[in-house]
């Protein structure tokens, strides 16, 4: 315990944690818009395309300088987005092909530049490799200001154009008909995805950046039905994954930050997909089971009513085997017990047979009539 407190009070660890949480929050916030606008894979292409920019920034600055690396990454990311648009608009190649081309070719050029830097040697070339998989430990205190600045700009943009971003993300055709500058707004949103990538590179690296964009947003979507809630929650999940990943990788030797962050975020997604109220798979399964149970109750009542009408006796006792023939499946004991406890049917013996028989009670008779819409069977006078 004291070891953890000592660790957390260390200046370096604090820097790394704050930085990682900040990066995760920015990526989470902007990723929410990317996911809603179905640009998840654009994020993947742009993040791979940032690699040559990182290398160029490194070559030009002559070392690992966060500012020039970010500018470089942003420049090639933006170039990749433009090339994407050119291919999709001006050729008959589909979007997925354009994504694949941009992603792989830009990355290949980045690899070539990477080897150029490595053959040049220099002390910082190892620091560059961290951009492939992220290394939160490499975050410096001075870097925090740069990240904070970018985060603040992104936050202000989102707040200022909140309703326009919402409208364009939901219904671009309506926005255009209303006279909003849709193309410009979409460009701003894409630029912000590129910004999120540039910022997140430090933490998770170019290869896994896409997960930091998508996973927090996909998890957040399951818990909330409002855009505001989704964006805030997505930022929070991004921050938690970032900080968690940084902590684990800082305390485990030889573990890159990116994969750890991604696995934490994926874990949160899996939990969300399973148990989120109303949407989660467990929740859906329970609802489906309740619906089946309801139908099953109704069908048992209807079958009993059918037998009663056939024999013109509301209290006609039916054997479980008869119900099985009529329903196709043996009515579960639980269903019969539940109906009995609700006072809709009662178990009777029907001598000389020894197996239990079931008949509709008066309440059950009216319930069955209400369900089927047929008149109640008259009680036979005994």
């Amino acid at each position, binding site marked *: 315990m004291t070891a953890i407190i000592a660790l957390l009070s260390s200046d370096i660890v604090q820097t790394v944690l704050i930085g990682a949480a900040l990066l995760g929050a920015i990526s989470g916030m902007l990723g929410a818009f990317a996911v809603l606008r179905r640009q998840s894979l654009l994020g993947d292409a742009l993040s791979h395309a940032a690699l040559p920019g990182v290398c160029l920034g490194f070559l030009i600055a002559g070392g690992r300088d966060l500012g020039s690396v970010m500018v470089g990454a942003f420049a090639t990311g933006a170039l990749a987005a433009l090339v994407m648009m050119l291919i999709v608009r001006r050729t008959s190649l589909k979007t997925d092909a354009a994504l694949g081309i941009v992603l792989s070719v830009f990355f290949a050029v980045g690899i070539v530049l990477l080897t150029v830097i490595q053959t040049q040697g220099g002390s910082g070339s190892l620091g560059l490799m961290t951009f492939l998989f992220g290394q939160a430990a490499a975050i410096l205190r001075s870097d925090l200001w740069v990240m904070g600045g970018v985060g603040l700009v992104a936050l202000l943009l989102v707040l200022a154009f*909140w309703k326009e971003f*919402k409208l364009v993300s*939901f*219904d671009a*055709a309506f926005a255009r008909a209303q*006279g909003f500058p849709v193309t410009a707004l979409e460009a701003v949103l894409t630029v912000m995805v590129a910004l999120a990538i540039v910022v997140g590179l430090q933490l998770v690296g170019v290869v896994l950046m896409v997960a930091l964009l998508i996973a927090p947003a996909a998890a957040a979507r399951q818990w909330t039905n*409002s*855009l505001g809630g989704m964006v805030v929650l997505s930022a929070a999940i991004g921050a938690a994954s970032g900080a968690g990943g940084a902590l684990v990788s800082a305390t485990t030797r030889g573990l890159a930050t990116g994969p750890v962050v991604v696995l934490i975020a994926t874990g949160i997604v899996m939990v969300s997909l399973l148990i989120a109220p109303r949407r989660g798979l467990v929740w859906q399964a329970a609802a489906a089971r309740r619906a089946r149970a309801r139908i099953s109750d109704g069908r048992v009542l209807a079958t009993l009513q059918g037998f009663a009408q056939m024999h013109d006796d509301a209290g006609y006792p039916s054997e479980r085997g008869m119900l099985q023939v009529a329903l196709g499946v043996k009515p579960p004991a639980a269903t019969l017990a539940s109906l009995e406890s609700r006072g809709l049917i009662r178990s009777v013996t029907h001598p000389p047979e020894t197996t239990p028989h079931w008949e509709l009670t008066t309440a059950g008779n009216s319930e069955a009539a209400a369900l089927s819409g047929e008149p109640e069977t008259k009680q036979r006078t005994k």
Partner: protein
Amino acid sequence: MRDDTLHEPEQALHVEDLTVTYGANPVLWDIDLDIPPGVMCAIVGPNGAGKSTLIKAALGLVRPVAGHVRFLGRPIGQMRGQIGYVPQRHSVDWDFPTTARDVVEMGLYRDLGWLRRPGKAEHARALAALAEVGMQDYADRQISQLSGGQQQRVFIARALVQDAPILILDEPMAGVDASTEAIIIALLKKLRDAGRTVIVVHHDLTTVQSYFDWLVMLNVRIIAQGPVAQTYSADNLRAAYGRHLAMIAVPAEEAAS
């Protein structure tokens, strides 16, 4: 070319020599069209006739090769706030995290201008618009939990909230049940009776006569336009639909029976 002079102000929608192509394929050829104010107008035609394109070109969403469009005499740029537009329902993602009231408020974003957020007044207007389509009880419902017909009514409420003199609806009856269709038509007729112009892209010829009072028949070119009573004829239908007409009720037979 900018041209802001008033032109044909007595028509709700005036289209002149409009030609639209996608690549080398003609979608609309030389459309001349006038829809007077205060009518409830159906735009009909076979699949691929360019019905939706006509609307999109009129709203400035698609750039024409030639021609021009006027709403109440003014170009679309000056009229954006005064046209309520209901796109096709399946054009958006209904799993978007938002509520019915929120969608309706989107109709007010233009009036609000940049930076301002919807407040109490906008909430009230959105609720009133939802009440008009009978959806006030679903205001805070997540839109994915609404049925197709309810989603369509939310879309219409978003156009109503603008209080626009001209309403344009793209296939509002597609994929909704009969009772929703009746509600929508009753609402549109009420709007028409209040003096609005209602323009609907419609696909069901059998209901044209009972729903609408003005008709535009389209098949890449304008086949016929005018009051339904005069335009809905076997000849025009044959010209618009060609050999596909066998499946459609021909009015001459209805008149005979």
